[in-house]
């Protein structure tokens, strides 16, 4: 029988898609001829809303730009504002920020693990990962008062000091996680069914990754040691000891291994942060929200999120409002330039697998 050319939509209502987006696939048989990404299901106009608000008011909205990991957004926003306004944050606040960022990276990696394993049908891993992520969210709840949208990292510091006994609870969690992650190795990372599906799928070449501005695990999976925490250290990352894991093959499995190794590094960083946590104030005095003015200047700040470099462009205009804040997350380029490219020639059943390994998050494409 002759193969017919058909077009199907993968998503937005599909368990194998990482959020509210869809991919239009042109198929011959099971092989993809052309892929087109479509977004537009949750545009909320954050960049416009921020232009209408004062600096302090805008702070509450940025965490909603990326749902799985809101904290890099808050850190970026706070760092950009501090750089424009010339504020210096206390060491304790910086350490707390690093702790929050690393916990959030860890939580996001668990969420990725749930998605990645779900994309090949290993649902037990997903259940476990979500349960373990919840333990981190419990800590966030205690520290910030909310589980997902923390609104904690504030221009000038962090909003609350650590609750009593918090560091001990973090240590307890770290000990548990170190033991627990080995179980994930057994049932997921080393699992033959995952290896057979993931090795050799979705290969990205090194040259392409550099030239096209890919970030995060995509870059590290093909052997480039790029990590904002090392390349342009922000907060106190230059005082902490950690490694940037890399792989050379550039396929889905390489990215999975990089992510898994990063979880170990996150635990290692958290361990040091808990031991080194200095005493002192967590917040410096900042003007009230009607008087907080940014000079006419612009800046570009970036942090390493769980999925790669996350950058903000911010321009002030001398008034109390931010003139322009543009988000440059990993997803825009990954979901269009990279995904549309990678899917050509892939099998239909690999779409979810490849997508999950890239860390695409539609809320951040549409802002």
């Amino acid at each position, binding site marked *: 029988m002759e193969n017919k050319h058909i077009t199907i939509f993968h998503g937005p209502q599909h368990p194998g898609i990482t959020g509210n987006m869809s991919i239009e696939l042109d198929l011959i048989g099971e092989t993809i001829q052309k892929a087109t990404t479509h*977004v*537009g299901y949750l*545009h909320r*106009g954050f*960049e*416009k*809303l921020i*232009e*209408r608000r004062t600096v302090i008011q805008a702070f509450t909205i940025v965490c909603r730009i990326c749902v799985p990991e809101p904290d890099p957004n808050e850190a970026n926003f706070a760092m950009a504002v501090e*750089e424009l306004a010339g504020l210096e944050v206390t060491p304790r606040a910086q350490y707390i920020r690093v702790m929050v960022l690393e916990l959030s990276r860890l939580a996001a990696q668990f969420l990725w693990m749930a998605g990645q394993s779900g994309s090949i049908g290993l649902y037990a891993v997903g259940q476990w990962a979500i349960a373990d992520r919840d333990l981190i969210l419990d800590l966030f709840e205690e520290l910030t008062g909310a589980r997902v949208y923390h609104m904690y990292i504030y221009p000038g510091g962090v909003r609350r000091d650590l609750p009593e006994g918090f560091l001990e609870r973090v240590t307890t969690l770290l000990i548990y996680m170190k033991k627990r992650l080995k179980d994930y190795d057994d049932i997921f990372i080393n699992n033959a069914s995952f290896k057979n599906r993931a090795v050799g799928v979705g290969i990205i070449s090194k040259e392409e990754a*550099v*030239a*096209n*501005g890919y970030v995060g695990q995509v*870059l590290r999976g093909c052997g*480039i*040691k*790029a990590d*904002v925490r090392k*390349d*342009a250290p922000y907060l106190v990352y230059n005082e902490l000891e950690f490694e940037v894991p890399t792989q050379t093959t550039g396929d889905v499995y390489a990215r999975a291994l990089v992510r898994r190794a990063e979880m170990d590094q996150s635990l290692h960083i958290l361990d040091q942060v808990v031991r080194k946590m200095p005493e002192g104030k967590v917040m410096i005095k900042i003007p009230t929200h009607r008087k907080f003015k940014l000079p006419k200047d*612009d*800046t*570009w700040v970036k942090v390493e999120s769980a999925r790669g*470099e996350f*950058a903000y*462009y911010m*321009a002030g*205009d001398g008034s109390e409002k931010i*003139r*322009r804040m*543009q988000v*440059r997350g990993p997803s*825009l*380029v990954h979901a*269009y*330039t990279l995904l549309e490219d990678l899917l050509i020639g892939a099998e239909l059943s690999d779409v979810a697998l490849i997508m999950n390994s890239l860390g695409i998050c539609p809320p951040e*494409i*549409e802002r």
Partner: protein
Amino acid sequence: MFNEIKQRFATDDVEVKRNDLYKVRIKYSRLFELMHMLRDEYDYKTLNAITCTDWIEEGHFALTYMLTTEDRKYTFMIQTMINREDAQAKTLSHEYKQAQIMERDLHEMYGIDFPGNENLKELSLESWVHTPPLRREFDTLEFVTNHLIFREGREDNVDTKAETKRLRAEKKAQKSKDEEVKDGK
């Protein structure tokens, strides 16, 4: 590097923002020449982002191109001004693949035209017919007021400043009245 830029492009507008972040402002006509120079001679190989800021008072858009080195350590911000009305900039999509989608994004949000870019279709705003939303003249509140319904039952909101004033005046009047009554007695 800075000296060469200053000499070759006759600009003094080179800033060191952080130890890993530089900024230069340049005329639009020399923009691509500078980008090519940075790419070929100084290893700024990756186009990381294109951002746009609307300076409506001055009548231009500020386009900022972020170039990063291959090892992602240094970032160069190259800023250029283009006219707000019939805004246009040459596309970079043939040199940098990722520029295609970034330009598509800017085209949708600001209405900037990028001749040479093959696909400038709408990205997330389906069937949008109004002003491109990130231009400053687009008023979100006005749009929302005209198109959406607000929750009922919130009309009893009181302007506290006016109310405080009114209450004070009332109190004062009452006081003087009381005194009058007292004096009358």
